[in-house]
């Protein structure tokens, strides 16, 4: 049984079509990456999954049932726009949110999560005295107490230092190991690549990618060369079969045109300078994202719309 199943879902606001005939399936127990540029309809889709918005057309099934208020008990939700009662104390706030969703006293679980995310010492502090990272971890706890069957996290790592981000990542993966399905909306392609079992990209209200990282990359073939060399990116101009060069600093990423031969590129480079590394690979998720949503996306959007 899929944890979430959207079928032909459309949502409009006045003249604006925020989500257009979207169908997707979130496998149970997976970490499902939900990516897309700003304004593409991710938040609207998430709000329909958590029953904040109702679709104009199509159906939203969550945990095997049509979405309804009783299901929210099993859905943990961390919205992108964070908000907490600033004058409440941390423990009281978490117990309030936990009891509101779960319907029972959650003080034990709150205590455990505070320990786990290194916030026990802040339990009696007011929210408005916490740092941004601390508030974010508190809000994460509010989403996972009591333990949800479906956890929806919208940009959970924004603003976190590496230590806090690691503890949060560990917590998310821990929940997944215990069977919780996680929908992770993110702009961080590295997070999507490393954490997600399944990735879906939405662009201008329509689904443009859907599958595992491997299957998505497979669609684009091995058309990418990552190279590092002495002399910098200026030496990469005019290489045979290279469509686009992306300078990443220490490494440059070359996108090959269809049917071109990487060996010719390597030979040309060696003639120009000293090559310290050269790898032919599949495109990164970042690259795929930019190909879809970057400059020139108009054409693709039209193609998608006409399909």
């Amino acid at each position, binding site marked *: 049984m899929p944890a979430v199943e959207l079928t032909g879902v459309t949502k409009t606001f006045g003249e604006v079509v925020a989500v257009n005939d979207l169908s997707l399936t979130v496998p149970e127990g997976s970490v499902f990456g939900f990516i897309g540029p700003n304004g593409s309809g991710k938040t609207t889709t998430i709000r329909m999954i958590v029953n*904040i918005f109702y679709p104009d057309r199509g159906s939203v099934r969550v945990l095997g049932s049509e979405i309804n*208020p009783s299901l929210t008990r099993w859905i943990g939700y961390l919205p992108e726009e964070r908000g*907490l009662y600033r004058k409440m104390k941390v423990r009281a706030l978490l117990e309030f949110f936990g009891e509101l969703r779960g319907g029972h006293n959650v003080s034990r679980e709150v205590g455990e999560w505070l320990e786990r995310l290194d916030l026990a010492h802040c339990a009696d502090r007011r929210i408005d005295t916490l740092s941004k990272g601390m508030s974010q971890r508190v809000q994460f706890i509010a989403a996972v107490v009591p333990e949800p069957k479906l956890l929806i996290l919208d940009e959970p790592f924004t603003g976190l230092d590496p230590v806090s981000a690691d503890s949060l990542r560990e917590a998310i993966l821990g929940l997944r190991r215990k069977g919780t399905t996680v929908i992770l909306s993110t702009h961080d392609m590295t997070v999507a690549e490393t954490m997600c079992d399944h990735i879906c990209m939405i662009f201008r209200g329509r689904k443009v990618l859907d599958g595992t990282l491997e299957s998505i990359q497979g669609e684009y073939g091995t058309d990418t060369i990552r190279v590092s060399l002495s002399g910098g990116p200026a030496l990469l101009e005019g290489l045979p079969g290279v469509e686009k060069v992306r300078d990443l600093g220490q490494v440059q990423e070359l996108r090959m045109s269809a049917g071109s031969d990487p060996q010719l590129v390597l030979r040309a480079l060696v003639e120009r300078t000293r090559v310290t590394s050269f790898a032919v690979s599949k495109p990164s998720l970042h690259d795929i994202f930019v190909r879809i949503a970057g400059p020139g996306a108009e054409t693709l959007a039209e193609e998608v719309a006409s399909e």
Partner: protein
Amino acid sequence: MNSSLRKTLLMAKRDYIESVRTKAFLIGLVVAPLLFGGGGIGIAILKKKPDLRDKRIAVLDRTALVAPGLVAAAEAKNARDAYEKITHKQIAARYVLEPAALASGEPDAQRLVLSDRVRKGELFGFIEIFPEALHPGNAANSEAAEKDPKPRVAYYTNAGGIDETRSWLRAPLNRAVTGVLLREFHVDASHAEDLLTPVSIDPLSLLVRDAETGRVEPAKKKDEIAEMATPFALVMLLTMIVMIGTAPMLSAVTEDKNQRIFEMLMGVASPMELMAARVLAALARSLTSSAFYIVSAVMVLQGMAMIGALPLPLLPWFFVYLIADVTMLSAFAAALGAACSSPQDAQNLAVLLVMPIVVPLLIMMPVMTSPNGAMATIMSLIPPFTPVLMLLRQAMPVGIPAWQPWVGLVGIVLWTAGGTWVAARVFRVGILMQGQPPKLAEIIRWAWAG
């Protein structure tokens, strides 16, 4: 317990506890009565500090007959009212009427001289009594006189609109004029007092038969001010508690919206549950304030042995109106708050919220003067104004037809239910809107389309 009800009560409990624990609520509880009652207390204090300066008024008597009676009346009033009986301490201004000799030449020249004296503060004013004061004649009723009436007595002053002196002058002047006329008609002076003493009407309560003794209880003299005090106090109390309960709602919802709390809550609860919780918290806040004030009033009245002044039969209606008014206004405030994007927007829209509170206060006096008049009846049956105006009319001693409060109640229930439903639709859409505040037309569209 039903899950929806459980969530609503839990959120209402949180909102209630958080709001009554604030200093603003506790201070408001004490300060509000001072603000509402402050005007009355201030007037009472100022009345005890009257202006004791003589009110010197020149009398230009063109009849040469009326002035002596007027002067005598002023002296009698001074003797009667200006001094405290035992200590002889002055407690009110004295009226000093000085007859002025008529100057030859243009009358306006003398009027100007007297006006200048008024401006200099030497006189409070001056009065000019024309011969027509005694004998208006048939010409007074002519068409020409109607178009351009000639004054019979003119009173010149630069005092403000409500001038006590002018009010006082009317009776002694009429008495002096009538006295002169009686003498002209050769009426025996011993009868003059009988003829001139006005007949007063004493307001008395209705008679009742004592149920135990069977005796007819004598009528009691009514204190008209005291009879007005109870309705006035009840309505002020209702208004004050409604404001304490609902006023924080608008800014609180806007603040929570700005702090992005609602999206987190809406992942768990529906907009209707969120709004119902807010309204319940406002109701609980209002009931807390009313309990505080009513218990305080009972204790004070008991201490003053005036517990009978408490209008016990009206208390159930008081609470019905309170609940209806708070529900209606707090739902309205929640919707407006959800439509606002900043506290400034909320302030701008607050004027819409206070209309149902302010309008009844503006028409209180006419309603009290004629509680069963057409205006009072119709206005009190308009649902937003029913709580205050119907309670006011019910508290008036004359009473109102028994069916009217019930019709008013039906109106309020329908209005409150409809208003809350519309407010919930606006709340649901507005709560997640950010950026530019919506125009009124857009809010109406949200209410229509949901």
